[in-house]
């Protein structure tokens, strides 16, 4: 028992040593010269491409802003902590960032489990939360409680409906199959497609197959065979880049050639490298011009962050997404002016109407709505490039 006493005393000492006393400024995270932001992301382990890309993109963009003198005379300090995609560590990190490091806001977070685990603390502590990258639908129905949360991320359900609508109306799709990752991301996409099929039943739309794969699965050959057996004329893919590339290669191998549609998460230029020839003539939905579409502002922004952090050149899509998450927030800080407080920032964010950043397009917040974007458009992949196909499609806001 004595061992334990000494152990506990030692622990407390270590804990106390490990926490440097941080002077608390008047508004947490804001001094006349600096704004402190933080995030917890998977920087190690299988989910690390997301953390390295998104986190790296945000960090590079903030450094770019700092290099231009900051905003209203304040530069940014960005703290990233690794949570290896584990909810307990994510919560511990966020709490420490808010209470010890005194951040002004948490920028993004990856993973629905982590978002849910943090949600109550963020709401109760009234901490600014900028675009946690989780299914936007988790905020629906929280209208009274999410004053300090601002999301500029599309919902997969809405995207699924859009894809189905476009397929049925413009591509004459009748028998639709879905290949999806068996987690919240893929399941929400599937739900969207189901709702779309239901809405367009009169036009003959039918969901003939829904084939899933597990996150840890390495191969998808059996799934490809199942899809071929279904005889669908259109295949909608809700996968991650690896399995997305694998499935299009596999179905090409077994000689199955449906019309292919997919989600914006596969608009990664990496897909051309992974899937090669098979990634041609794919129809994708997207909410902003992506790198590789020939949009000048997007490409310039990507060039900027790649110059600051060359490693981002290999993760262009995630990095671009990171920039798109943080841009509206920076605009809000700009509009809030030199006397920056949380309340003034919220008011400033609510004045943003149909605003375009370097990456993100068409952001709007109102007093009642924290869903910043609700538009998408279709692109098609041709010869290593994405070309715009349709105009904006607007879906109803949920929160």
């Amino acid at each position, binding site marked *: *028992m*004595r*061992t*334990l*006493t000494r*152990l*506990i*005393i030692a*622990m*407390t000492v*270590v*804990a*106390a040593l*490990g*926490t440097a*006393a*941080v002077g*608390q400024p008047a508004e947490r995270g804001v001094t006349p010269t600096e704004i402190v932001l933080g995030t*917890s992301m998977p*920087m*190690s*382990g299988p989910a*690390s491409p997301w*953390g*390295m890309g998104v986190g790296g993109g945000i960090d590079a963009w903030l450094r770019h802003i700092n290099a231009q003198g900051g905003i209203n005379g304040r530069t940014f300090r960005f*703290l*990233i*902590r*690794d*949570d*290896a*995609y*584990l*909810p*307990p*560590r994510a*919560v*511990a*990190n966020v*709490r*420490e960032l*808010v*209470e*010890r490091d005194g951040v002004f806001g948490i920028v993004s977070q990856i*993973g*629905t*489990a982590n978002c*849910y*685990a943090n*949600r*109550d603390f963020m709401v109760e502590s009234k901490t600014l939360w900028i675009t946690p990258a989780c299914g936007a639908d988790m905020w629906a129905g929280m209208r009274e409680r999410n004053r300090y949360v601002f999301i500029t991320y599309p919902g997969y359900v809405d995207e699924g409906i859009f894809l189905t609508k476009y397929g049925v109306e413009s591509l004459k799709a009748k028998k639709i199959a879905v290949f999806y990752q*068996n*987690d*919240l991301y893929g*399941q929400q996409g599937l739900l969207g497609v189901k709702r779309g099929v239901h809405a367009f039943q009169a036009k003959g739309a039918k969901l003939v197959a829904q084939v899933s794969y*597990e996150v840890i699965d390495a191969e998808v050959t059996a799934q490809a065979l199942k899809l071929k057996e279904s005889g669908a004329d259109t295949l909608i893919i809700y996968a991650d880049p690896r399995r997305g590339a694998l499935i299009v290669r596999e179905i090409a191998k077994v000689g199955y050639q449906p019309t292919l549609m997919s989600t914006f998460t596969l608009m990664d230029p990496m897909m051309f490298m992974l899937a090669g020839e098979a990634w041609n003539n794919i129809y994708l939905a997207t909410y902003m011009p992506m790198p590789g579409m020939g949009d000048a502002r997007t490409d310039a922004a990507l060039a900027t962050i790649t110059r600051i952090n060359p490693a981002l050149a290999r993760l262009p899509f995630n990095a671009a997404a990171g920039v798109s998450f943080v841009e509206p927030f920076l605009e809000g800080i700009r509009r809030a002016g030199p006397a920056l407080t949380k309340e003034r920032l919220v008011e400033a964010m609510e004045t943003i109407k149909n605003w375009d950043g370097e990456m993100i397009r068409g952001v709007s917040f109102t007093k009642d709505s924290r869903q910043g974007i609700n538009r998408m458009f279709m692109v098609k992949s041709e010869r290593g490039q994405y070309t715009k196909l349709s105009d904006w499609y607007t879906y109803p806001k949920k929160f």
Partner: protein
Amino acid sequence: MSSDLLERYQDDLYQVKGATGWLAVGTLLTGLFALPFLLPRVGLGYLLFIAILMAANVIVAVGLNMLVGFTGLISLGHAGFVAIGAYASGLLAARLGLPWYAAWVGAAAITAGFGFLVGLPALRLTGPYLAIATLGFGIAVYQVLVNWTALSGGRTGLPIQQLSLGIAGLTPTQQLYCVAVGAAVVLSWVGYNLARSHVGRAFAAIRDSDIAAEVTGVNLLWYKTLAFAISAAYAGVAGAIVAQALRHLEPQSFTFLESITYFAMVVIGGLGTVSGAIIGAVILTLLPHYLSGLKQWLPIFYGAAIILMMMVEPRGIYGRWMRIKMYFKAWPL
């Protein structure tokens, strides 16, 4: 060292020796339960959350140690038991409307039941074979939780109702801290006593030579499954704590990597002792947290730390502590 001089047989039996012993225990307990009130005052309130996680890990480690350290049966699927405990506590509270303490007891019982089932193959399997069987169990639990959406909410997850001690003026975190640390203290105390009871001796006999143990009257069927059931029950309670800490459960937190981490906690801390398990749990909870600022370098430093700790003291940190104590006890020899 006069407190080490034993005058009566009863002195040897006592877990806590003498006045100094009780003083130490008292200080420890007062310290532990004063923390939730002291820390927020100095702005260190966020440490309470880590302490809650640590308490859960301590409980799992003590339970796992009973299985691996005392009885010599390997389990690489303990995250499965933690998951069962977590989901069971949530479901019992939500679907059956039980108050939280009843839900926790129920969760521990359900998990113990599963532990019993997993223990049955242990009668035939040893070493790596048992390890794979338990590994398969862990994976099966994960996949069932992911796919049986009606039960577990699948990837959408299961929301957990907040427990309440009914004491006004305490934040939910403080309340959970008290419950979690209280549970950890009680279960560790049970662990210490179990080690010295006839059950603990039976476990040790099985570890040293199970055939000889059976010959001398230790019922292998009963004790092996009991070992699994007890360690599973511990894991179940820890799962309930984790469920409360996260307030939202997804199978994400209960994978093979977690099982391996629990296993490492027990071995690094010191196999076969309750104190060792506690130390291992504390270290392996704090280490990744304090290294989290290193981002992608974390696994390198974490792995190197594990290798160093095992190389420096193969018998675990507690083993090193024992050696230091022996050195001073035998001084000046």
